[in-house]
């Protein structure tokens, strides 16, 4: 189940440019770009652990239930990451709309 996170990163270039403008308005130290990065990092580790577990299974070194749980964690992380990313992007878009 190799996950591709390129779908998550597609929004970043847009957020990157505007983050510089958005930060002073938001008035907080967490800008959108780093919020998005945070969401994506949260996906990366479980994903790698799942891939490693699958490799181990193929080499005969791992229990199936361990792989199943690692895969479920990666799935959940991905789902969560996706939801968080969507929320961040839509919140950002709303703010951009307000500025016009």
């Amino acid at each position, binding site marked *: 189940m190799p996950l591709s996170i390129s779908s998550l990163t597609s929004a970043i270039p847009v957020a990157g440019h505007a983050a510089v403008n958005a930060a002073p308005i938001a008035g907080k130290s967490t800008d959108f770009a780093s919020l998005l990065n945070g969401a994506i990092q949260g996906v990366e580790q479980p994903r790698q652990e799942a891939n490693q577990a699958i490799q181990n*299974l193929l*080499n*005969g070194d791992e*229990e199936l*239930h361990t792989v*199943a749980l690692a895969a*479920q964690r990666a799935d959940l992380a991905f789902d969560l990451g996706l939801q968080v990313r969507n929320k961040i992007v839509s919140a950002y878009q709303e703010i951009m709309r307000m500025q016009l």
Partner: protein
Amino acid sequence: MSLFSALSISASGMSAQRTRAELVTENLANAETTRTPEGGPYRRKDAVFQTESVGSPFASVMNSAMDEGAGGVSVAEILVDKREPEQRYMPGHPDAGVNGYVAYPRVNPAEEMVDLMSASNGYQANVASMSALKEMILRSIDLLR
């Protein structure tokens, strides 16, 4: 060692017990055999079991301390009875020696039956073991759903 390779442990148990049962059957069938191609009466056979380290289909290095000594079983050798055959006085028998004694196999049907039952129980237990392992693997697969 994963649960998958444990299946081959149970399989080896089934195989060894089956060999044992087959030997009993051969012993019983030849309980009265006074004449064999090798000469002399039939000599009963017995299986000697030995613990084995098991390789799995996906085998990699066994690196866990747990795996030492753990493993299936194999038939190390088949022991042929080396005792002197039983002598029965039967002067008219075609295989009688000059003194009128015929050499008979030392096969005790009661003992053989006890062996057979033991082999059968052992076989059943290994079947149950394999079922339980399979059950756990299936539950693990459920975790993916």
